[in-house]
């Protein structure tokens, strides 16, 4: 099988203007992947399937990744001029100080596809696509028209991560009910507070159960107070 760089070169030769980027996996498994530009992803996917040498005819797995907004703090050396008294004379001195700068790297949602070739008996080739952000630009092209087996898995990602796949034949929730509003696999999912009865709670669950009980007691007291006022 071709190496990931060779596949990238083949894609770029076959699909002009395709945005392909190699994502290096530094771990010993060295399973590198290709990040596709969503605009050209459908053409690239068709090429990967139809190219006689790659012939990636089997979509084994589709999954999602949530990358939340990340705060990065980095140390920067800054030169500045300060007034200092040197040998009794006041003068301007240049000095370098460390300054911590914080910036927020916007998050995104990612869909990951694992491709194999049944004909050529090789794989997997991992391709990825990223959305613009996590709130309103969450659309990606659906690869179900290329690999039919992606249909339910893309529905599952739509359900649990909230990526909207354009061109999917039947994009509905698959695991949760239709009028469910959240996306449970996102990192910032807030679960319903149903810790009213935890007979053997410990660790994180214990903390949640105690928080629930405190809130319930505060609520009961608030109601009593309101009753007394009336």
């Amino acid at each position, binding site marked *: 099988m071709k190496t990931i760089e060779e596949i990238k070169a083949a894609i770029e030769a076959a699909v002009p203007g395709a945005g392909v980027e190699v994502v290096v996996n530094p771990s010993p498994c060295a399973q590198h992947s290709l990040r596709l530009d969503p605009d050209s992803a459908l053409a690239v996917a068709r090429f990967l399937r139809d190219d006689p040498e790659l012939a990636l005819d089997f979509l084994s797995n589709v999954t999602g990744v949530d990358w939340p907004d990340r705060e990065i703090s980095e140390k920067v050396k800054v030169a500045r001029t300060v007034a200092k008294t040197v040998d009794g004379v006041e003068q301007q001195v240049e000095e370098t100080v460390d300054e911590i700068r914080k910036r927020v790297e916007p998050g995104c949602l990612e869909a990951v596809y694992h491709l194999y070739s049944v004909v050529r008996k090789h794989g997997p080739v991992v391709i990825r696509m990223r959305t613009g952000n996590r709130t309103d630009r969450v659309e990606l092209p659906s690869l179900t028209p290329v690999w039919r087996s992606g249909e339910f898995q893309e529905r599952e990602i739509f359900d649990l991560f909230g990526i909207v796949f354009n061109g999917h034949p039947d994009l509905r929730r698959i695991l949760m009910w239709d009028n*469910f509003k959240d996306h449970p696999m996102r990192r910032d999912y807030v679960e319903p507070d*149903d810790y*009213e*009865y935890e*007979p053997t709670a410990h660790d994180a*669950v214990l903390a949640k159960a*105690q928080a629930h009980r405190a809130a319930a007691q505060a609520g009961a007291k608030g109601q009593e107070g309101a009753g007394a006022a009336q």
Partner: protein
Amino acid sequence: MAVDQDLKIELGKQGVFITTLQELYNWGRRNSVWPMQFGLACCAIEMIATTMARYDLARFGAEVFRPSPRQADMMIISGTVTKKMAPQVVRLYNQMAEPRYVIAMGACAISGGPFKQGYNVLKGIDRYIPVDVHIPGCPPRPEALLQAFITLQKKIDAQPLTGPGRPRFLDAAAQGEFPVPVPGEHDLEPAFNQGVWPLPVLQPGKKD
């Protein structure tokens, strides 16, 4: 009811059989409990094994699994009840005719089991419908289901036909239909039925 057990046996030896209406009635009821034919998860495999020749639930009169709630007397909640499935389970229970009984089989059905802290699994079906017998286990052995069934038979046998503690179908004031939870935007609404599942009180003085 007031017949002495020894006297009954003695009379039986003489060829005189006496009984009470309640005994006869409950004997008939407990020996023809027909379960509803449905399974929810892996516990259903154990339930199927229980009905087959090796464990043979038919010995206790529960061999006829009915594919319709109208003809079933007992519901075996065999497996994980997801929040998506819970309204359907409650609806099926509502469609069963009295007398009806429920066995919650396995860790998931009684409490949510290993999925208890998940966003998608109900923390026990007894939050919405009355459960007669709970069986722990993951999954419970067929023997445990048989034990639960025998426990249910004992419960049926002990039910008086009049007075407090009589079965629901002989009590005109008893609740017959149980509210079906509605899948809401974040969770099932309501999260539990207060009438069926009054919030259990945790042991006072227990460290938690």
